[in-house]
């Protein structure tokens, strides 16, 4: 048994040997429990434990803790050891506390008192132990207790070196813990001057402190630059005998040199010419030494030397001002790239990544491209290969992009699983950033999906679709390429998604070729359908409905698919709903409406690539290097998607807008999935977004009628849509899903409890104030009086319109939440336009009717200033959402919009005509409503006016 150092604790040695001799885990646990019981009884019973025994038991506890067992006693004994005068006992006490006692323990007050006593003692060993304990625990309480003493000890002339070292690091710890408490004030210059201290250990400790101080307040500590440079210079130019024990394998003070070089990286190159020259000389000396023959064959010698060299190169890159130094650094790293030491190759690749971002050395780095590619192919260590990928990414520019991307793609086939996802992101970014020819971009991304489909995240395939939609020169090529890619018998689901989306938008561009005729495209996609996950199937259903618009000739076949039991009775509500709605959309509407609803997607707003955002999240450092390249590379300018500072999330699913429109139009079938789908405001994509912002922007009228704040906004948001969130506060979210047909409506109201507690006595009632009780009939089923935390309850309303109305019904909700009565009063989103069904008519009929409705009581006209940008797409979308449809080629002036519809009430049907005339120059609109009933004209006009 090896000797235990110092005062041999035989009991401890025996215990450790016992544990080591245990044959099984069970035996070990048994032995430990026995020992714990023993120690516990000793601590409890025997009051005559002396310091030595306490120390022995505390040591045992430490050992047990190391073996992975939590220790829940013995703390008090450890605290008692602190007041011992024996070094080892005191030391064990501090050790136990540093390792086992958490900063917020009740014992901390006692510990702090002991530390105070030790600091006040004249014994430097005691002072050091106390300070190391502060440095290790560093709680807020300690910061409060010692914030005055420590700086004094640090700079005082009669403090011995060892104590100074501890004090520096102790202060550093308190500074991190409670920066607000520490104010060095007048001490700051004396702290900086510790850099001149005779004792190298003190300097080493002080540099760490200064580095932290500098990071907090660079200006205040500017003076350290010249001191650090001169200290560094003295070390670098010293011979290895000068520094004696601080020379490590013939390298003078390597750790201190590294730290000094780090501190300097907090500042730009020194302004003072003399300091600057001196620093340049230092860096040159370090570079020169790398070329000298080694003073020792030992690996420690070269490692220590290279540690300093790499840090010097980091500083050179940081200053980024001296081309000569940068190129020398690059050449030096180039040598390391082929070094036999794996560590050096790894570090050289890492440093070169930084060099690649400097305009002075970017070209020099590119010279090593071949070597880096070889490293990617031949390195045996995945960490090194990973660095090679990083470097290739950093050195990529317009001139070498095709080659680098090709190499990365080739490597991807065999790449380690751990780095595939990141590589995919990098390839996608490079391909986009440096694409001159977008066909190359499309090819690259499709290859990416083919080779590493599993690692292609949503962002990547969203992005290729965005780009294809925004660039019409590549759409035909993209359609052709995805079509070919889909021919493969086994293709990745991501390929099906991209293929489905692109063919749905641009399949017509290749439909002329009989080999890719509409029917062939459809069958090709549908052959993959059954192998795909629900989300992809949903996307394909959207593609199919888009095909109905693009290729009316295959409408019957597509309707067959939509009508199939697999779709209509699918257990996935989303698929079921899509199938039902798309089927209705294609059956009921005219070709014109279909064409409007299923129009090609508008270009996406230009925004930062979400792939880049993802990579940034994954690896903050590596992207900074490339994305914020300091050199204005020509290629970066050509990028057709300027990177904006605000990353905007992609809309969740792109082709959902038409789904939402389908809701509005697919009236004749009651939607069977109603109660299953929670109201989702965000899912509906662009169309709804338009209205959301509208809702938010419309001027708020003050709620004078006892309504809950927000009620009006919620109500207005529903003018042009039927589903969404009506109201939301901290407790409750109220969603609405509505359907109207002729004079009838069905509304599902969903109450979501956002808290984790129950709502009780929950009631929700509809009231029809004043006249309204004669105009509307509302039947509401009662809601469950208890809504559990996080749960959702629904209420169904049936509505019948007897005659037209102008005030909406009110919804009163009451419940008890944590003992308090809550009350919410809202407007129910029922307006007369919901009961209007659009009608088709040609120009002649329209104007004939227009003329017959010309009496002043029948017309209501408003002229008003545009409150929103006068965008024709948005206007169309709003009018379609309003419910009166949109008639094309009716108005002789193509700028104008006209709609026609019939308002259904029980008592009568009212024909409605609408004309909206924008005047772009004046930024004005004229809105005219003509109906056979005065009140209807007025109400519709008022409702719609607020939307433009």
């Amino acid at each position: 048994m090896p000797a235990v150092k110092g005062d041999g604790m035989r009991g401890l040695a025996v215990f450790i040997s016992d544990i080591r001799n245990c044959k099984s885990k069970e035996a070990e646990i048994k032995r430990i429990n026995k020992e714990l019981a023993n120690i516990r009884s000793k601590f409890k019973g025997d009051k005559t434990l002396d310091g030595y025994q306490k120390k022995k038991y505390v040591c045992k506890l430490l050992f047990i803790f190391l073996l992975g067992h939590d220790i829940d006693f013995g703390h008090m004994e450890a605290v008692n050891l602190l007041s011992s005068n024996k070094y080892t006992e005191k030391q064990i006490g501090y050790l136990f506390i540093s390792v086992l006692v958490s900063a917020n323990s009740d014992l901390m007050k006692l510990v702090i008192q002991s530390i105070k006593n030790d600091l006040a003692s004249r014994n430097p060993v005691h002072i050091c132990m106390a300070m190391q304990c502060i440095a290790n625990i560093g709680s807020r309480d300690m910061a409060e207790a010692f914030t005055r003493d420590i700086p004094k000890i640090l700079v005082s002339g009669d403090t011995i070196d060892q104590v100074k070292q501890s004090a520096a690091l102790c202060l550093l710890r308190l500074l991190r813990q409670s920066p607000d408490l520490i104010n060095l004030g007048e001490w700051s210059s004396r702290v900086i001057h510790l850099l001149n201290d005779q004792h190298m250990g003190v300097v080493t400790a002080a540099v760490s402190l200064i580095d932290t101080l500098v990071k907090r307040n660079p200006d205040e500590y500017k003076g350290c630059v010249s001191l650090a440079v001169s200290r560094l210079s003295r070390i670098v130019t010293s011979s290895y005998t000068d520094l004696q024990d601080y020379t490590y394998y013939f390298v003078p003070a390597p750790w201190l040199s590294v730290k000094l070089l780090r501190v300097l990286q907090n500042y730009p190159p020194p302004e003072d010419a003399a300091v600057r020259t001196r620093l340049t000389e230092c860096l040159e000396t370090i570079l020169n030494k790398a070329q000298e023959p080694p003073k020792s064959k030992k690996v420690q010698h070269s490692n220590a030397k290279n540690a300093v060299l790499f840090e010097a190169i980091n500083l050179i890159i940081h200053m980024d001002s001296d081309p000569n130094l940068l190129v020398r650094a690059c050449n030096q790293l180039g040598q390391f790239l082929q070094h036999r030491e794996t560590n050096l190759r790894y570090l050289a690749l890492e440093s070169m990544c930084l060099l690649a971002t400097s305009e002075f050395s970017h070209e020099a780095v590119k010279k090593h491209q071949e070597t880096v590619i070889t490293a990617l192919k031949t390195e045996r260590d995945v960490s090194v290969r990973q660095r090679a990928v990083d470097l290739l990414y950093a050195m990529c520019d317009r001139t070498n992009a095709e080659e680098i991307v090709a190499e990365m793609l080739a490597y991807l086939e065999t790449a380690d699983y751990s780095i595939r996802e990141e590589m995919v992101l990098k390839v996608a970014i490079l391909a986009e950033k440096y694409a001159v020819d977008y066909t190359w971009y499309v090819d690259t991304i499709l290859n990416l999906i083919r080779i590493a489909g599993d690692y292609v995240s949503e962002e990547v395939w969203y992005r290729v679709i965005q780009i294809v939609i925004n660039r019409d020169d590549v759409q035909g090529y993209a359609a052709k390429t995805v079509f070919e890619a889909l021919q493969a018998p086994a293709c990745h689901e991501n390929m099906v998604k991209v293929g489905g989306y692109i063919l749905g938008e641009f399949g017509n561009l290749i439909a002329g070729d009989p080999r890719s005729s509409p029917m062939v495209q459809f069958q090709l996609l549908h052959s993959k359908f059954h192998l795909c996950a629900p989300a992809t199937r949903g996307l394909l259903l959207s593609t199919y409905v888009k095909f109905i618009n693009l290729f009316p000739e295959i409408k019957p076949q597509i309707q067959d698919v939509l009508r199939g039991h697999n779709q209509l009775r699918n257990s996935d509500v989303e698929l079921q709903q899509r199938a039902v709605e798309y089927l209705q959309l294609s059956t009921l509407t005219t070709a014109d409406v279909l064409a409007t609803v299923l129009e090609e997607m508008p270009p996406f707003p230009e925004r930062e690539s979400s792939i880049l955002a993802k990579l940034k999240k994954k690896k903050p450092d590596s992207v900074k290097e490339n994305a914020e390249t300091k050199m204005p590379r020509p290629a970066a300018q050509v990028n057709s998607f300027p990177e904006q500072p605000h990353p905007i999330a992609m809309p969740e699913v792109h082709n959902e807008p038409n789904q939402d429109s389908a809701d509005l139009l697919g009236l004749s079938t009651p939607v069977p999935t109603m109660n299953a789908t929670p109201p989702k405001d965000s899912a509906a994509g662009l169309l709804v977004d338009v209205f959301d912002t509208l809702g938010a922007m419309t001027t708020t009228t003050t709620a004078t009628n006892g309504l809950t704040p927000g009620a009006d906004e919620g109500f207005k948001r529903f003018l042009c849509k039927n589903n969404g969130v009506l109201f939301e506060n901290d407790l409750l979210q109220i969603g609405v899903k509505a359907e109207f047909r002729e004079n009838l409506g069905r509304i599902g109201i969903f109450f979501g409890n956002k808290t984790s507690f129950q709502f009780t006595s929950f009631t929700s009632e509809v009231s029809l104030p004043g006249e309204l009780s004669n105009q509307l009939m509302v039947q509401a089923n009662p809601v469950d009086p208890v809504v559990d935390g996080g749960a959702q309850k629904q209420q169904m309303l049936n509505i019948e319109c007897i005659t037209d109305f102008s005030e909406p019904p009110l919804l009163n909700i009451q419940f008890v939440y944590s003992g308090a009565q809550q009350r919410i009063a809202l407007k129910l989103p029922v307006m007369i336009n919901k009961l209007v069904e659009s009608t088709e008519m040609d120009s002649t009929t329209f104007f004939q009717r227009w003329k017959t409705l010309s009496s002043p009581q029948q017309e209501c006209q408003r002229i008003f200033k545009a409150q929103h940008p006068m965008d024709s797409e948005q206007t169309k979308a709003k009018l379609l959402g309003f419910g009166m449809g949109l008639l094309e080629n009716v108005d002789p002036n193509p700028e104008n919009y006209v709609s026609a519809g019939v308002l259904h009430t029980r008592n009568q049907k009212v024909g409605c005509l609408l004309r909206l005339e924008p005047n772009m120059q004046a930024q004005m609109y004229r809105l005219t409503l003509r109906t056979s009933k005065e009140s209807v004209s007025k109400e519709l006009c008022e409702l719609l006016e607020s939307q433009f």
Partner: protein
Amino acid sequence: MLKFLILANKRGQIRFAQYYEHMSKDVQETLETEIISKCLLRSESQCSFVEYKNSKVVYRRYAAMYFIVGTDNEENELAVYEFIHNFVETLTKYFSNVCELDILFNLDRVHMILDEMVVNGHIVESNQATIVSSVRAIDQVVNR
């Protein structure tokens, strides 16, 4: 700064651990298991630097013992790599030829030596003679 230093033998048993960043015992345990197994799996020809979550891990193997140091991104890898060697040499000097059992039976001494070299995650002293002599000073007081 250094975040932790772990010593383990090649069977994966942990022999010494010091943390400079507060972590709960559970987190420490997972970290130890994951990092040790990661290091054990690596061959001689692979480099001595591994990434683990947001730490850089630098390790060095001496016979059956692995010395593993985790650092933040502000440390120079080679400097840490040589710090490990300096630590080992200091242990050797103190124990005159250190082995696994010396460490196991003298955890407190190893802590003392490390505390002389690293405080609060920063290297404060690299001078082996100074370190050994201050620990010896304590031993002598005790033995007297």
